[in-house]
């Protein structure tokens, strides 16, 4: 006769995604007027925002990188798997609408400033848009939800596609967020693609390329993959804290790899930046061993046989697991 024993070890967590500069707006730095946002002016519609950071011209020469990136959840950073879209609505209803001093009584009151708690990472370029874009985004989210409730698949897909029209694309990492220390390295310029080389770039829209000093450094990803409360916001939010863990629990112990080293290079995933959803990465992340044995334990005169199960888990990544 056999009995079944089940043990469950669970990770509970949340994920997030990237951050960056705003429009000039009275700021002191030199070169702010050269950014994409400053040259374009604030977007008034989602379509304008998508156009401002349109990276479709990259595909012509970088089809492989584009195809890789499309598989990453960065390419649908507002929609996610649908749960991200739902969580943004939760943040409006359970967060903004319940906070007495937010100025939000209903979704109609939501402005860009209100959404930056999520958009700081899920759509950093929203900072380069007018409040009408925040409203269009909110309306699209609720229309998508409504269409889903009504089981209107065609409408739901249309709204889903609209939500996916803005995302973390080539230009977010290779331009807008390619420089963190802007007073030292200058503001990212319109018409320049930032990566590993300086020189001419055969593209009408982006005729120059320049070295980003952080493109292969963990801080590039750390702009979004979090250290804790986002103190720069009037109402600090917190999603993932993996960059904080990386700094204080991995680098501080002598860890040498960057985010890019594991998530892009060693994994051979390139711009298809994945974590646990990639089977090889999931397997490499945690060593998992189980040992067990049984014996007849004696509690005084009474025999009480037992099984001993020992589990050993070693986190081989550069940050606490779980985290995003």
């Amino acid at each position, binding site marked *: 006769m056999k009995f079944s024993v089940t043990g469950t070890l669970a990770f509970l967590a949340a994920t997030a995604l990237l951050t960056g500069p705003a429009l000039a707006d009275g700021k002191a730095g030199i070169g702010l007027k050269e950014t994409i946002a400053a040259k374009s002016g604030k977007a008034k519609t989602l379509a304008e925002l998508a156009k401002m950071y349109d990276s479709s011209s990259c595909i012509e020469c970088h089809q492989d990188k584009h195809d890789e990136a499309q598989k990453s959840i960065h390419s649908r950073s507002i929609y996610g798997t649908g749960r991200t879209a739902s969580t943004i609505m939760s943040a409006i209803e359970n*967060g903004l609408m319940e906070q007495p001093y937010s100025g939000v009584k209903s979704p109609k009151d939501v402005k860009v400033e209100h959404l930056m708690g999520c958009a700081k990472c899920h759509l950093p370029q929203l900072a380069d848009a007018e409040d009408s874009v925040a409203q269009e985004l909110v309306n699209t989210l609720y229309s998508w939800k409504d269409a889903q409730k009504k089981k209107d698949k065609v409408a739901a897909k249309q709204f889903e596609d609209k939500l996916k029209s803005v995302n973390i694309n080539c230009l977010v990492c290779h331009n807008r967020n390619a420089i963190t220390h802007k007073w030292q390295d200058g503001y990212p310029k319109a018409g320049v693609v930032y990566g590993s080389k300086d020189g001419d770039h055969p593209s009408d829209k982006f005729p120059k390329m320049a070295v980003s000093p952080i493109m292969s450094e963990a801080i590039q990803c750390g702009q979004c993959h979090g250290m804790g409360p986002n103190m720069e916001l009037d109402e600090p939010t917190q999603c993932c804290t993996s960059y904080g863990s990386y700094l204080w629990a991995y680098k501080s112990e002598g860890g040498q790899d960057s985010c890019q080293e594991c998530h892009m290079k060693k994994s051979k995933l390139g711009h298809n930046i994945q974590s646990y959803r990639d089977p090889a990465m999931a397997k490499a992340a945690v060593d998992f061993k189980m040992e067990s044995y049984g014996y007849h334990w004696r509690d005084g005169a009474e025999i009480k046989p037992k099984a001993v199960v020992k589990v050993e888990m070693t986190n081989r990544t550069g940050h606490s697991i779980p985290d995003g």
Partner: protein
Amino acid sequence: MFNQEKIYMPVPQQLGRGDRMGRGPYEKSGIIEDNGLPPGKTVHERFDIMFPLEELEVDGKFVSRPAAYDLDIEVKLWYLPFGTKKTDPFLWQEASKTVSISKTGK
């Protein structure tokens, strides 16, 4: 027969104050404790599982005997991005083994 869960995660503080855990990103600020798996470190867990017993009458006396001499053990490591197995659960690692005890002896 036996089912035990252990949870590993950074535990966020609610609104950066007090002893309450925060849940959504709009109220999470700070960490109460990090009970996740730390990088580069090994976490050990031990489970002691008693075999089920049954009472039997032997030569007019009631004695306890194992109801089974084999236990099928399964240990699963799940990632639950949204805190429940109902939404997007991911089975990260698993191991199984049958543990047997002797049927004879003093």
